[in-house]
């Protein structure tokens, strides 16, 4: 394609030739920009008889050229165009439409600095209220507006237990086995200097049962099931399924979130027990391999080191952590907006916030237990 300029007589003449379509107009852009800004006198003729094909992009360039020349106060005539091209150029507006510029004064520096901070504070407050709302609605159950039915749907809870609990067993067991083995190995190497290798059993037993077992299981579940809950509820929100439940007269929190919360509070303690057994088994294998402590000795020592408070103090934390994971996931799911990006953002936020919540809760439990000497 090409565009060239000839002048003579009482005006100028622009000749366009070739294929004026969007993939080929790049080559002619500099020429056209030159023509648009050039000045001259008299009438201008734009000859399109050599144009083979033209689409909106090519037509727009011609239209823009005509407008530019007309604003210079010159007469422009289009010659040689086929009827299709003529019509195409005619339907284009003279100027590219553009949105109205935003009006109103620019916010002050003070406003721009403190608006985000204030927004974060109100967001946190809003999250807390939403969490309480979800907890409250969940306790009320899947009740209809007029009080019929309600309570808990066992099938849905069992289904969630299968998804979030039973299918998590292999990964939780494997992870805990390795964690127990690692703690035992590191402990054994350090305690060897003092000739106190047998105390590695105390170390692993107490650490695993009181802290690590429940904490890592909760983190794993936050990543595995918390994200799933947020994604499920979020995509239901996007497709107006939550609105449909409300209109039908059901409490969406009760129908969707309550079974998940119940399932989480059941499975997290159970998974913690599995995690504890797996970790102790891993520790026993490692101490036997590296330090020659037999299973009998390990069990005897474990029996002396661990009393019921160690087991109970870990297990008590599990349901609370499960509730925290479930509520954070549900709150984030309910906040999902219309776009896929917002879904991704809230799933990320759900995992990060629930892991953070679990660790904060764990530290509060640690302070509490030491205060009551449990």
């Amino acid at each position, binding site marked *: 394609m090409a565009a060239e300029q000839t002048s003579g007589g009482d005006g100028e003449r622009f000749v366009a030739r070739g294929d004026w379509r969007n993939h080929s107009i790049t080559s002619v852009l500099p020429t056209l920009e030159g023509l648009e800004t050039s000045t001259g006198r008299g009438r201008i003729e734009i000859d399109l008889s050599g144009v083979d094909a033209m689409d909106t992009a090519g037509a727009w360039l011609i239209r823009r050229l005509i407008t530019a020349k007309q604003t210079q106060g010159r007469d422009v005539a289009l010659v040689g165009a086929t009827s299709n091209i003529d019509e195409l150029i005619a339907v284009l507006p003279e100027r590219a439409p553009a949105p109205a510029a935003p009006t109103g004064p620019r916010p002050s520096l003070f406003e721009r600095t403190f608006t985000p901070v204030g927004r974060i504070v109100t967001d946190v407050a809003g999250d807390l209220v939403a969490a309480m709302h979800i907890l409250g609605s969940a306790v009320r159950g899947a009740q209809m507006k007029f009080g019929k039915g309600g309570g808990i749907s066992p099938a849905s809870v069992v289904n969630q237990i299968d998804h979030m609990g039973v299918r998590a067993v292999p990964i939780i067991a494997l992870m805990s086995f390795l964690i127990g083995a690692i703690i035992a190995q590191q402990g054994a190497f350090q305690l060897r200097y003092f000739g106190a290798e047998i105390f590695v059993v105390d170390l692993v037993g107490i650490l695993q049962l009181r802290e690590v077992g429940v904490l890592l299981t909760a983190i794993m579940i936050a990543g595995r099931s918390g994200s799933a809950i947020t994604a499920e509820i979020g995509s239901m929100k996007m497709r107006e399924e939550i609105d449909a439940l409300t209109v039908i007269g059901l409490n969406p929190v009760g129908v969707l979130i309550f079974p998940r919360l119940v399932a989480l509070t059941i499975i997290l303690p159970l998974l913690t027990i599995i995690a504890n057994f797996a970790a102790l088994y891993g520790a026993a294998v490692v101490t036997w391999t590296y330090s020659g402590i037999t299973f009998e000795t390990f069990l005897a020592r474990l029996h002396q080191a661990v009393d019921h408070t160690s087991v109970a103090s870990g297990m008590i934390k599990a349901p609370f952590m499960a509730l925290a994971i479930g509520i954070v996931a549900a709150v984030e799911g309910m906040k999902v907006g219309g*776009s896929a990006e917002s879904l991704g953002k809230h799933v990320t936020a759900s995992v990060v916030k629930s892991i953070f919540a679990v660790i904060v809760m764990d530290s509060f439990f640690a302070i509490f237990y030491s205060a009551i000497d449990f």
Partner: protein
Amino acid sequence: MAGTQKDAAQKERQVVLSVHDLTVGFGSTIVLDNLNLDIYRGEILGFVGASGTGKSVLMRTVLRLLPRRGGSIKILGTDYDEATDEQRVALDTRLGVLFQHGALFSSLTVKENIQLPMREYLDLPQSLMDELAFLKIEMVGLAPEAADKYPSELSGGMIKRAALARALALDPDLVFLDEPTSGLDPIGAAEFDMLIARLRDTLGLTVYMVTHDLDSLFSVCDRIAVLGQKRVLVEGTLEDMFAFDDPWVQSYFRGKRARSVVTTEQDATPTAQSD
């Protein structure tokens, strides 16, 4: 290139899309069986059929979103299976698709949605792409303010229009529209039909339109094809439809709803011609 196009324009009914002996199935069910279909340059083909007869399957197969069991599909004279990679890319830029629910990218604004294909395929400065995007937005009847909105902030009709603007971003030769007027109010739907007809006239588009809207079929479609019994039952003008002896086709085109549209169309025709 230029010469062949002029020759093609002279040849009256150039085939743009040709589907030959197409068979598509899922598992043990055959959805389309030895289906044949031709679409000619510059026409608007309306595609109808009862729900579940495979209209969407056919469109998705033509667009290569579904695998086929047999048969060949030629788009703009090129068989995709035999094309080189360059030819395939060139072919992709000459097709535009309006999906039933818009399928706008939800994390991009309307303007970015329209510019996405331009950015990929064309080497144009940003200022020109902005102008072109705004032109497309105006062409489909959206306000310029819609350009910076995200799809979740748009109404159903605006999503359809924005999606059409994206389908037209590269000035394609062949446009596939999947139920373009479903979910629009009658006035909006009529405007949309007129828009498609105007674009066909100015840009020389060929339109493949899956629709259930009798108004669209009667007002803008040059030719109608009916899908049934796993093949194209009948194709042709409206008169052919009325004459065709099949219970479904008869009840579709001669039902109560169709009759009311036909009478209003006939009433409206003289005024439409006068302006």
